[in-house]
């Protein structure tokens, strides 16, 4: 920790660590200095010249993103000199910017629009025609480039150079002829390409997936956690429920990474970013059903389904012994779900070792040093902390079971035809239609709860939209079957389940459901068994 | 008078003459009621700067919208005759019949003209000449209450029932007042026969016709007011209260509804006839002796004069309807019991005293 020094900001005496950038120190004091090129995760090349402010003793306005705090510095960010310098700088940026805001997806969350209203408001003196460059250039799997709108802040080129180190983008040419473009023969198709859309302060880089669907101001934003892998990146779920026709009825419009220095920084991978589509996909299971004698599924109401499953389980357990019932559970389930499952298994008399949470072949994937983890499930550590085995596959139980209850993962082929097969989840997967019972599960964007990432950090999932149709979160299903069996499950929201959980489970002792936005580490640290 | 019975005429002549008179009186009432539906629309339209109903036409001729009477009749007759399933159908059907019949029967007692000497005998132009005509009319008007209450009760609807009860309370209250009001002039005329009451007013005093309105101005005003309330006309049309409080015929449609509507108009005609007879000198035209008419011509003039006066009163009732806002129910009952009835009794006392003094 650098030592604190005193300096003057807009005439006020403030303290900041020595060597911190003035722009950051000002932000800590609640003073916003406009900037484009500077990004805390990408460095400060000082090319946009928008963060210029008056520094006492310097002959000209200085860039606050290139000036370090030192004892006795006197910075004025809102003096007439500073304001005029910022406005002039902004005018240069807008000189060749096409102002096609009506068709630009960035409108509403565009830094050019915001800064013009707050720091610009000059009368344009540019009478010449604007530069025309290539519009609508398809540069990658997910990204569309509009060279006219680009203000050459180089955030995206620094991202592909420094963060992903894939080097697809660069600014070519000089002066007003400089354009952002791909290196010849390359495409922006690295696994983190979506991030360049987030960091682009204007609408030069837009998301092909989101393109032209919803205007930014219609979106509702819910902070949550991506369940795509064991990293558990902090995300914002953007939902469009006010104008459903814009997205053709899809409720979840897009995901954006949410800054969390402990987990994902500013970034998230494309796999997670575009993984939201399952929330409104055609494969969603909206209602529960049971296969009739004719092989056709018959719809069940949630109460009916829970009661009938409970009745059948009670009879089968009595006849064949509870040791023959296996639970194949996705480790993406929240701690609340797993806690309810534990209670249900205890009530039935099923040993905890009959629950298989180890990721299946379809739940393992690519891994890299940046964010992505091999295990494509979100709560492996949480499952381990709750005492579930997370390494053993289902093979050990082969031949010993009469029933399989599968939650949120592909069914196990060899168990087809068992007396009891139940599949529960949000999206139909391989084998889910062969189960006798189907219970409709809620999608993770519809779920409240907590998950523990690979490093033992507990984070909060928040429901961005209500569960579709008659689907319900897994803890609610386990709870209602438990109640139908005569057990006690006095909870009707995830917060209540978590309170019971933190009281009962030593690994979660003392935690509150309202977690800080960055999450907290498990009090006793990461469970050792939490790797596949 | 009973002139018909005293002569040696065959009975069938009397019977036929009576039948024709009654048919004419009822026909006059029904035609006028139909005409009033048009008057009501047009009069309100003209005084409110509108045009009024004018779309019904035959071959493009609109004729001031008079065809609306015809189109209304066709509409009412071809509409679904709906009886509420929770109601009592026979009574539901009977109610408008009772109301309308009572009003129609009143009409037959109005003295449309004096007697006329022809073919060696006297022909009384009153359809049903009665010595107690006033009592007859008032009694039949109160029979109308039965229709109202029956309609409200048989509809099986709380709104209709409340409307019917409101109607009963109002009509019975004003019946009492009506009797007290007419007692004054009748004491003056010394008769209960409507024709004789009309004939009494033919006398003059220094050229001024001594009509009931001159001798009994207070009774005239009270009679018009109480009459409007008794016949449920605006500003006392609370039993109906179409838009706000919902009346007894809320469950009626088609011709049955039209019968209730017609009852209102018929009762208005009866009220106008009674007013004409008791207060406006009946068929008497001041100065008619100077015209030199006699016999049938004089009688015809009397009929025309009576109908003209009757129409004038109807016009006044309409005009009042389109001038005054509706009363509140408590105001209505207050007016009847606390104001009109005492004033009527005072009027009766003063009349009795004066008659005693001058006779």
């Amino acid at each position, binding site marked *: 920790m650098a030592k604190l020094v005193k300096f003057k900001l807009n005439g006020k005496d403030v303290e900041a660590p020595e060597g911190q950038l003035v722009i950051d120190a000002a932000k800590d004091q609640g003073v916003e200095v406009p900037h484009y090129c500077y990004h805390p995760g990408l460095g400060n090349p000082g090319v946009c010249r928008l963060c210029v402010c008056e520094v006492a003793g310097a002959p000209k306005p200085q860039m606050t993103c290139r000036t370090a705090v030192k004892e006795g510095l006197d910075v004025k960010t809102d003096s007439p000199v500073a304001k005029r310098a910022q406005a002039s700088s902004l005018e240069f940026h807008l000189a060749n910017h096409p102002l*096609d*805001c*009506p*068709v630009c997806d960035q*409108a509403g969350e565009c830094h050019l629009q915001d800064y013009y209203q707050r720091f610009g408001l000059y009368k344009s003196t540019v009478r010449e025609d604007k530069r025309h460059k290539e*519009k*609508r250039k398809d540069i990658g799997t997910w990204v569309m480039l509009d060279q006219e709108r680009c203000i050459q802040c180089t955030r995206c080129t620094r991202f592909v150079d420094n963060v992903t180190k894939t080097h697809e983008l660069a600014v070519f040419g000089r002066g007003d002829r400089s354009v952002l473009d791909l290196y010849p023969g390359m495409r922006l198709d690295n696994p983190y390409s979506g991030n360049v859309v987030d960091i682009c302060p204007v609408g030069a880089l837009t998301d092909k997936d989101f*393109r*032209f*669907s919803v*205007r930014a*101001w*219609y979106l509702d934003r819910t902070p949550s956690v991506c369940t795509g892998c064991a990293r558990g990146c902090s995300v914002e779920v953007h939902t469009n429920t006010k*104008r459903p*026709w*814009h997205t*053709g009825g899809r409720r979840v419009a897009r995901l954006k990474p949410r800054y969390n220095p402990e987990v994902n920084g500013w970034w998230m991978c494309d796999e997670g970013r575009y993984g939201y589509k399952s929330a409104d996909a055609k494969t969603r299971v909206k209602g529960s059903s049971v296969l009739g004698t004719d092989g056709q599924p018959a719809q069940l109401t949630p109460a009916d389904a829970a009661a009938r499953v409970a009745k059948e389980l009670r009879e089968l357990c009595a006849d064949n012994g509870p040791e023959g019932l296996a639970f194949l559970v996705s480790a993406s389930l929240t701690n609340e779900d797993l806690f309810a499952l534990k209670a249900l298994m205890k009530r039935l008399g099923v040993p905890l070792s009959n629950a298989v949470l180890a990721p299946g072949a379809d739940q393992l994937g690519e891994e890299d040093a940046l964010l992505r983890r091999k295990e494509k499930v979100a709560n492996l550590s949480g499952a381990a902390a709750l005492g579930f085995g997370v390494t053993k596959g289902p093979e050990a139980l082969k031949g010993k079971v009469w029933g399989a209850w599968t939650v949120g993962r592909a069914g196990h082929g060899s168990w087809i035809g068992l007396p009891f097969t139940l599949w529960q989840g949000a999206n139909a997967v391989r084998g889910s239609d062969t189960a006798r019972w189907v219970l409709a599960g809620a999608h993770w964007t519809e779920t409240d709860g907590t998950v523990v990432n690979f490093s033992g950090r507990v984070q909060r999932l928040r429901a961005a939209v209500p569960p579709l149709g008659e689907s319900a979160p897994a803890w609610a299903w386990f709870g209602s079957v438990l109640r139908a069996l005569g057990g006690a499950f006095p909870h009707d929201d995830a917060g209540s389940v978590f309170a019971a959980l933190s009281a009962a489970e030593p690994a979660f002792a003392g935690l509150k459901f309202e977690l800080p936005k960055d999450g907290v580490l498990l009090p006793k640290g990461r469970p050792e068994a939490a790797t596949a | 008078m009973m002139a018909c019975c005293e002569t040696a005429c065959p009975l069938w002549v009397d019977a036929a003459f009576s039948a024709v008179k009654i048919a004419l009186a009822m026909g006059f009432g029904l035609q006028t009621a139909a005409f009033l539906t048009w008057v009501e629309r047009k*009069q309100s*339209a*003209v*005084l*409110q*700067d*509108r*045009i009024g109903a004018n779309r019904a036409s035959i071959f493009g001729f609109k004729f001031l919208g008079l065809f609306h009477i015809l189109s209304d009749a066709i509409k009412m007759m071809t509409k679904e005759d709906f009886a509420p399933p929770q109601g009592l159908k026979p009574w539901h059907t009977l109610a408008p019949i009772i109301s309308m019949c009572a009003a129609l029967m009143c009409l037959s007692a109005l003295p449309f003209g004096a007697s006329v000497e022809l073919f060696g005998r006297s022909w009384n132009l009153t359809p049903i000449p009665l010595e107690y005509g006033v009592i007859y009319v008032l009694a039949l008007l109160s029979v109308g209450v039965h229709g109202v209450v029956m309609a409200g009760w048989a509809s099986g609807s709380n709104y209709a029932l409340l409307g019917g009860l409101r109607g009963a309370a109002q009509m019975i209250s004003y019946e009492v007042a009506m009797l007290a009001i007419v007692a004054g002039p009748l004491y003056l005329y010394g008769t209960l026969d409507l024709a004789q009451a009309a004939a009494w007013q033919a006398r003059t005093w220094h050229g001024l016709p001594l009509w009931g309105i001159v001798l009994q101005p207070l009774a005239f*005003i009270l009679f018009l007011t109480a009459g409007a309330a008794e016949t449920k006309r605006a500003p006392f049309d609370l039993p109906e209260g179409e838009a706000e409080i919902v009346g007894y015929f809320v469950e009626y449609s088609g011709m049955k509804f039209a019968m209730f509507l017609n009852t209102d108009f018929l009762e208005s005609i009866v009220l106008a006839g009674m007013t004409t007879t008791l207060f406006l000198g009946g068929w008497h035209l001041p100065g008619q002796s100077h015209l030199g008419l006699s016999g049938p011509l004089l009688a015809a003039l009397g009929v025309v004069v009576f109908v003209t006066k009757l129409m004038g009163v109807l016009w006044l009732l309409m*005009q*009042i309807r*389109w*001038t*005054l806002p509706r009363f509140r129910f408590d105001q209505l009952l207050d007016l009847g019991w606390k104001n009109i009835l005492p004033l009527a009794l005072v009027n009766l006392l003063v009349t009795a005293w004066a008659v005693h003094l001058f006779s």
Partner: protein
Amino acid sequence: MNAKHTVAKVRRPEVRFQEQIYLIEVWKGLVITTRHLLVNLYRHLSVALGRGGPAGSVTTQYPDDPQVTAKRSRTRHRLLKREDGTPRCVACMLCETVCPAKCIYIQAEESPDVMVEKRAKTFKIDLGMCVFCGYCVEACPEDAIRMDTQFIAFPGMTRKDLIWDMPELMGDVKKDPKPVKAVDPLGPAAS
């Protein structure tokens, strides 16, 4: 601020005796209505006999006589076209956003014209819900939507008939009955 509240006392008009007995007031009312009746009767007669004078009623015989609107009133919407016949609308959703009645429904799509980029796939206005405030016209950055004058009647037999899509709004499908007459309230009648 003083926490005391003062209650304004409203003085109700006192009912005088002559008003209480009501009869005089009834008489006054009757005089007014009867005067109206007679004056209007005279005017009706005067017009009917061809002697002219003011009309006895203010009623417009709507389907027979043309309805008259002020010249500057803005009524039914129209979507404008470019010179090549394509709609000017770029589906920026500003009109949909500003619309207080929430009666505009737009879906966007990629335009084949690279200089246009974005265009409306559907552009529907529910004229049954529209309040004709004109905000959409003011919000439009492309001058793609305007409101015509003289078109106040667009009847439909169902509510769905009142939802106009792009062909109707651009005039490719005619749904208008005859236009009404517009007059300048400050001057002589316009054509």
